[in-house]
């Protein structure tokens, strides 16, 4: 049995094979770091910072796009709705993170710049064709279904909260159920 440290209830590693331990745990060494280890650790983090900062422009764009992909997926995967994180926001991010002008991007996906602007400003609902073009443009990095779910999330919020629409439509509804619900 390993020596028990103040911070950890240490596992009795002698009961398990190395493979079983690797399948079950990630845990750091419990002994205090030596001066040599502390130096190596500082060196590791310093190298990491240098490596990250010295990326090429292309690598930086790629990292930003991957960040957007995972932020988008996280957002559509949870129930919380945030007005600012709508389709237009993510589309605008997708274009600007590539350091492209709207006009250039519109050309690349064969739509008019005015239409792109309407999408970005949420004045027009994107078509299926357009979200498929976005998937193709990203070479599959951001699938059409992710863009579609984003549109759907905006729509769900709209339909749940649109009181004006309810007022307008109420004049078309007669003899509604009197049962309490």
């Amino acid at each position, binding site marked *: 049995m390993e020596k028990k440290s103040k*911070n*950890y*209830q*240490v*596992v009795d*590693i002698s*009961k*398990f*094979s*190395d*493979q*079983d*331990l*690797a*399948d*079950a*745990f*990630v*845990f*750091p*060494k419990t002994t205090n770091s030596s001066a040599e*280890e502390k130096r*190596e*650790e500082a060196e*590791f*983090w310093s190298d*990491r*910072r240098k490596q*990250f900062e010295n990326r090429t422009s292309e*690598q930086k764009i*790629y*990292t*930003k796009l*991957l*960040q957007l*992909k*995972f*932020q988008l*997926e*996280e957002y559509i*995967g949870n129930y919380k709705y945030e007005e600012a994180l709508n389709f237009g926001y993510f589309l605008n991010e997708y274009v600007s993170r590539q350091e492209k002008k709207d006009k250039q991007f519109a050309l690349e996906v064969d739509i008019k710049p005015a239409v792109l602007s309407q999408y970005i400003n949420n004045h027009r609902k994107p078509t299926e064709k357009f979200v498929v073009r976005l998937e193709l443009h990203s070479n599959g990095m951001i699938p059409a279904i992710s863009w579609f779910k984003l549109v759907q999330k905006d729509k769900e919020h709209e339909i749940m909260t649109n009181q004006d629409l309810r007022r307008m439509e109420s004049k078309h509804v007669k003899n509604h159920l009197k049962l309490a619900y």
Partner: protein
Amino acid sequence: MYIIDTITGEHIPAAVSKIDLKEIALINKSKRFDFNWNAEKLNDVYKLAAEGISEPLGLMSLVDRPEDFATEIRLIAVSKDNKGKERRYDRIAGSMIAFACKESFAAGYNGFICLKPKTLIKDHYREKYNLQSTKLFLVSEGSNSLDLIKAYYQDGKEK
């Protein structure tokens, strides 16, 4: 994301979510996991839960290191009844590592994750997750982190 029931071979949808201090204390009290998880309260602690199974199957402590553009995995443990050869469910630790990769991408670190393992099981981590080895740390980033995400978040049951 799914785990595998080693008895039936069934794929069970699973999800990783953050837990608060209250839940950490409760889980710690249950003694279903090794280590003192109360000591991880200053970090972000996550649990892996699977559909139809009431208790969490895995715990993970992450440290966000924005100044180093990295997500550090401090600690991972599967529940006591799921370790060793008699374990009921598989893919728990791997799923949590893949989740850490996702968090790292979403933070803008290009999927850079690292962990400081015990020396004796370093080779197994390296082999199982294709991690790169430095003197002290094991590291994954970029395409390897994407591969880990693809390996553990697939089959249309993503969460």
